[in-house]
């Protein structure tokens, strides 16, 4: 384990200015076969902010997260977490994969999934210490899943599954959260309550990057956005990024409707 054993979130209240970017991606290029999926993508997500990665289906949003974490090979590119190469900062990042990436009939209980978040910090071959067990329970309570800890994960609804994944990420106690499409297939009520939770985590000083497909909530809920379509189309504060002109560039034809009213722009969402 590295020097960041304690790994708690940084103290709240500091602005973004005096911290290195939580996640910085430089010249990321990925292709599957001959087809470029990401092309020279630069992005810098500020610390202590709630950031969105937005773009049409197949834009390479999931690929960007996976390549940034080194889960798939990149042709070129570099990822820095708090200014350090990602390989040296694994304990500073909690990754929440897309929900359909796992088999939900797997024989595992809710609590065991969340406990998984403690394996790397405590060591893969050591017993989970008692204070970690308490932390796991706290994380379950935090996402409102305390009453479900003994359930097999297959018995949960989509929103509850997402909450379990978030609880596991919280259990990692990493200051940076990367989440892939946490709101796909989740009802509006759950989406709102998860967004609220994310905002609270941000206010505690965590940096959160969310792959998101609903432009309507991006404007209201997020601070910073990357608009992606193979290339990085625009990046910056949400109000500057989500404009009619940039959306047209990211979504191409048909984006006019998107630009007219971002709140109704669901026609392209997967």
């Amino acid at each position: 384990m590295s020097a960041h054993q304690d790994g708690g979130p940084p103290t709240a209240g500091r602005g973004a200015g005096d911290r290195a970017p939580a996640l910085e991606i430089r010249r990321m290029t990925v292709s599957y076969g001959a087809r470029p999926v990401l092309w020279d993508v630069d992005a810098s997500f500020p610390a202590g902010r709630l950031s969105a990665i937005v773009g049409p289906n197949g834009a390479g949003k999931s690929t960007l997260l996976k390549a940034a974490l080194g889960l798939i090979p990149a042709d070129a590119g570099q990822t820095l977490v708090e200014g350090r190469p990602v390989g040296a900062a694994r304990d500073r990042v909690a990754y929440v994969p897309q929900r359909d990436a796992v088999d939900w009939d797997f024989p595992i209980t809710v609590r065991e999934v969340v406990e998984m978040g403690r394996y790397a910090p405590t060591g893969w071959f050591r017993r989970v210490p008692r204070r970690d067990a308490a932390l796991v329970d706290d994380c379950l309570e935090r996402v409102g899943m305390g009453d479900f800890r003994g359930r097999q994960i297959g018995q949960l609804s989509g929103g509850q599954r997402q909450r379990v994944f978030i609880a596991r990420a919280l259990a990692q106690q990493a200051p940076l959260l990367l989440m892939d499409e946490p709101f796909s297939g989740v009802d509006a009520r759950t989406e709102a309550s998860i967004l609220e939770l994310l905002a609270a985590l941000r206010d505690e000083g965590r940096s959160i990057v969310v792959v998101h497909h609903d432009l309507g909530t991006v404007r209201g809920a997020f601070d910073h956005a990357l608009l992606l379509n193979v290339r990085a189309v625009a990046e910056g504060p949400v109000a500057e990024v989500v404009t009619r002109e940039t959306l047209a560039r990211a979504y191409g034809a048909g984006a006019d409707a998107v630009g007219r009213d971002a709140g109704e722009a669901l026609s392209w969402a997967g």
Partner: protein
Amino acid sequence: MGWLIDLLPLNYSDAVVAIGAALLGIAAGALGVFAVLRQRSLVGDALAHAALPGVCVAFLATGAKDATTLLVGAALAGLVGALLMVGIERTSRVRPDAAIGVVLSSFFSLGIVLLTHIASTNDANQAGLDTYLFGQAAGLLERDLDVMAVLAVVALAVVALAFRPLKTTLFDPAFAGAVGLPVRLLEIFMTMLLVVAVVIGLRTVGAILMVAMLVVPAVAARQLCNRLSLLIPLAALIGAAVGVAGALIAARAEVPTGPVIVLVGFAVVLATVLLAPGRGVLWRGRKLARDRRRALVEGVLVDLETTIHAGPPPTPRELALASGRPRRQVARALSALDRAGMLARDGERIHLTESGAAAAHAVLERRDLWSAWLEHGWKLRLPDAREPDPTDLRASLGDDCADELRRLALAGDGGGAAGDAGQGAR
């Protein structure tokens, strides 16, 4: 192993067979879980088939017939097959199932050619080799058991030691990679575990049917438990039971061991798939039938209540007509209500008893609550991840939420009624 053989209340040869089959069942049952949960059961099949040419080559190279030498050959061939499958999958655009098919059929064909060649050129020495096709537990020697036991203990100890990395990789490889586990390596390692299981079982079950010993215990155990840490020991136990039963029966009946073990295993799978509480087909079928019946009875109860409310008590026939339900269904529901003491009959005509009326009102209240949830649920700020259960909203959301919903529904009723009136006018 001598002490164990002495311990068992069996004659010497049966004891050897039973111990061998138990070792095989434990190893294949526990390790097979890693194939089944990765949805790679057929990798185990391919590895078992790939082992056959290894046995033949080992025999041709050394001339030895002792099991240990031949199993080294089997292990090496299994490894080559495994690497080939991974290689084909990674470097070309061949899908995993096709890669498995290619490796399985080509290795097995090579094995058959070699077997035939050995049979036609060699002396009586070769006679034992074809037991590797269908399995022959009766031929096991005491020293074979020692080899099997050592392999099984080592493999299981490694699984126990690396349990968390293995579990994490199995469940969520992307997460495992993100926290720094060597996912590729662990996946190859899981395939190696299968090779070990195949090597332990090859002699007893045979190459063709070995896959059953990998898959059957895991499938049966999965029906019965919901945690990986229990699933693996349970699968080992089921594997051992199936193995011992099958091997002893086969030894008595003088048929090859593999098919008998597989048939016993099939019986176990069939039983668990049908009967397992919660997951079993029969269990789920009964629950479905119960739910449907309940829905029907509740529907008829409400129909009856509304009909009585609007006019004179109906006959069953009138009730069926008014509610648009088939008469047979109405009759069935009415007799259920009758048995529950909810009906009072007045000649042909039917009333609700006091308890019947109360039950009808309870159903109506639940339905109202559900509509209130659909309409106003978003206004409730549930503090946690509770999800509404349409059949019993009050129990699933708690009394506070249910009361709040009723309040919202009552408050909203004025608007709702106005909307209805507007629609009526249109």
